[in-house]
Structures are given as C-alpha cells and as structure tokens.
C-alpha cells in the first residue's frame, strides 16, 4: 500500500508495511537541527523522541559552539542540586524509572562526580579498615597508596567501557540509545557503593558479604531495568542477549571490589604479609605465624 501526499511544501511517499519501519523522506529544508522535528508518521514503531545527541552542533539556544568550547558542554550541567539528589535517589532505590526523569534534562554532573566519590570513598574505607586491622594485629600502621590508583582505574574504566559497550550494542541492534544516558546509568548505579563501603569497615566477614550482596542486587537491578528500557525501544528480540553479559560484567566488578577493598581482617595483615587481600576468614584472631 502506498500513497502520495500532494502538499505544497514537500512530497512524502510512504510505504506502510507491518514488519519494517516506515521509509520516508525527511524534510531538511526547514529547521534542520530541531531534534523534535522528526516526522514519524508510522504506525508500527512507537513515536520515540531520541535524547539530544552529542554529535550534532549545539544549536539549541546557546548559539553554535563546537566541542572545544566550554559552553557546548555547559548544556549538560543544567541541573540544580535538587534534581541531582532526586536522581541519585532513583538510582539507589529503583522505584520509578530513572531514564524518564533523566532524559528530560540530561546531565553529566552525576555521571562524573559519583564514580569519583565512589573511588574516594572506597580508598578511604579500605585504608581505614586496613589500618584498624593492622593496629589490632599489633603491627605498625601503614597504608597502600597504590590502592587509590587501582580504585580509580577500575571504577572509571568499568563505567566508561561497559557504558560505551551498551551504547554501541544497542545502537547496532536498532534501538536509539543516547551515549549520555548509557554512561549516566552506569555512573549513577555506582552511587550505592558509597554507603556500602562505609558499612564494610566493620570487620565482620559475613556482614560484609551480606552488604555487598545487597549492593549487587540494587545496582544490578537498576542497570538491568534501565538497559531493558533502552533495549525495548526497538522491536527486536536478539539483543536482549546482551543483558546476561552485562550481569556477568557487573558480578565480576563486585567480586573485584569485595576481594580488593572489603577484605581486610586482622588475620590477613600479619607482619609477614603486609597488605595482602585475605581469603574470607571468619574469626578475627592474629595468625599463629606472627609470633
């Protein structure tokens, strides 16, 4: 079935087909950069407005700036304190949809500063628990500065690579993700690890495992739900397969966190082996080899 529309400004020839998205000519004569101006007159795909993409010039209302100007990126920092707090809340307690709130006003503040805070929080709490364990074992108090660089590397690379992977994968399979929203899902998902790392200072191993499990469930559920929402924007079923992959990656991250940062018991810091992450030892007694 096809029909032509006799219009003075343009001619659209539309093929309506049940299974394929409609093909139509986009009108580029008027308002070329209006993101809302996509004439999606099809009946098969839900009319989704993709979020503001990073590639096109920032012609909204700040004039045309290129990527190398601060003003270009200032668009993404257009949030107030209240908004950020609300978004962090939505990320930690996944009740409502994060992406709906986020896409109305994408921001990069949370995406950058929350992983940074997580890095710092984990470094502080891990060195604190290491020092406590060392003091209880009777050794000299010292700290491991390389932990900070390791934390930085891990958290940032996780957020960046897995976020970019989600963006590329969903883009390849036809959903319409925004790079900002993929990165922000992962950035905000890290927020739950700040209170968890504070709680993990307590040298009770089962407690640490329980708290880490809660964190894994919370952040994992949040990521899954958001990715599901992105994936659901197209009609294919094939790329739901990336969701188990993401789950595995997240589990790996959690395990690395646990063993590198949350594992300092007294048994692990005898003077013969300084700073080694422990295998989960249940009893906080000094090792017999130290004396």
């Amino acid at each position, binding site marked *: 079935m096809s029909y032509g529309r006799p219009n003075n400004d343009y001619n659209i020839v539309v093929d309506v087909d049940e299974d394929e998205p409609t093909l139509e000519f986009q009108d580029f004569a008027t308002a070329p950069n209006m993101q809302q101006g996509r004439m999606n007159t099809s009946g098969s795909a839900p009319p989704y407005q993709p979020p503001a993409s990073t590639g096109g010039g920032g012609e909204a209302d700040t004039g045309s700036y290129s990527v190398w100007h*601060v003003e270009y*990126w*200032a668009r*993404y*920092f*257009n*949030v*107030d*304190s*209240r908004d*950020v707090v609300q978004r962090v809340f939505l990320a930690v307690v996944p009740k409502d949809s994060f992406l709906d709130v986020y896409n109305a006003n994408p921001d*990069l*503040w949370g995406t950058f*500063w929350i992983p*940074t*805070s997580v890095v*710092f929080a984990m*470094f*502080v709490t891990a*060195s604190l628990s290491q*020092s406590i364990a060392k003091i209880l074992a009777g050794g000299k*108090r*010292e*700290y*491991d*500065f*390389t932990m*900070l*660089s390791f934390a930085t590397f891990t958290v940032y690379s996780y957020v960046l690579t897995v976020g970019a992977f989600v963006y590329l994968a969903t883009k390849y399979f036809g959903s319409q993700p925004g790079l900002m929203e993929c990165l922000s899902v992962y950035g905000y998902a890290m927020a739950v690890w700040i209170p968890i790392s504070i709680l993990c200072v307590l040298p009770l191993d089962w407690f640490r495992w329980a708290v880490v499990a809660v964190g894994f469930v919370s952040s994992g559920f949040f990521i899954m739900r958001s990715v599901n929402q992105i994936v659901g924007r197209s009609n294919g079923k094939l790329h739901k397969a990336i969701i188990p992959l993401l789950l595995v990656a997240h589990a790996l991250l959690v395990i690395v966190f646990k063993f590198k940062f949350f594992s300092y018991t007294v048994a692990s810091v005898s003077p013969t082996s300084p700073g080694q992450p422990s295998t989960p030892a249940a009893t906080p007694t000094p090792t017999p080899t130290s004396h």
Partner: protein
Amino acid sequence: STLDEPILTTIGRDFGKVGRKTIQVLYPKGRDNALREWDLWGPMFFCLSLAVIMSFLAPGQQASAVFTGVFALLCIGSCVVTLNCKLLGGHVSFFQSVCTLGYCVSPMVIASLITLLAHRIIVTIPVVAVAVAWSISASVGFLAGAQLANRRLLAVYPICLFYICIGWIIII
C-alpha cells in the same frame, strides 16, 4: 621600568605578592582584593611542598608513588573542580579559580608539617580536620562571587571532596 631595578627588588615584589595572597587566604579579613590578580607561583609552591612532605610520610618504597600521586591529584583536581564550576554556569575565570584553590591548599601544608613533626595520631586528626575546614571555608568564600543560584551544593561538593581527600592522605 622593571628591567632597571636590582634583581632583589623584582624577586622581592613577587614574593611579596605571593605572601600577601597567602595571608589573604589564611586570615580572610575584608574583601578578596589580593586574589584578583592570579599567579601560579603560589599554587605550584604549595603543591610541591605538600607532595614532598607526603612522600616523607609515606611507607617504605612507596615514597615516589605517593609524591607522584599527590602532585597529580592536586594539579588535576584543581583543574577539574574549576571546570566543574565553570560548567555549572559560574562566572569565574579559569586561572583565577585554579590560583585560589592552590592557595587554599596552604593550611593543608601547615597541617602536614605538623603531622611530620608529631607522629601521634591524637594530634594529627584534629589538626587536619581544622585545616580541611579552613581550606573549604576559604575557597567557598571565594566562590560566593560566582553567582550560582540553586547549584551551590553541586559546586561546593567537589571542593569538599578535593580537600577531604588530601586531608585523608595526610591523616593516613
């Protein structure tokens, strides 16, 4: 012109400026006139001295790692915090803000000196806490002129994070 005067006068004038700015940060009375003209000598000096002191305090063979880490943290941290303020729409000039953040590190330098001299943790923690509060209030006072309406928290939080991070490394 300044080319004709003896070298000591030139150097003395620069040192005088640095000293005046430092005192402006350490004892903020009146308006922040001294900080209007930015220079990077002061921040560089404080950055280096803090990194050197921290490497003295570092355990064993990690001294150079600590020096590198602290120096990098200070440089990159100041830039990132300044960028954050600018991106949030604040009306600050980039170098002026970097300069201010660098000068506000001076209480931390004093605190780390005290830590170096007195290795007792019972002394270290309150001293560093006071120094962190001092630095934060000094730089927030400078930020008051940057006109950030509802986003004060978003701009102040990274500054707090920055100084608390440095303070923690000193405590530890």
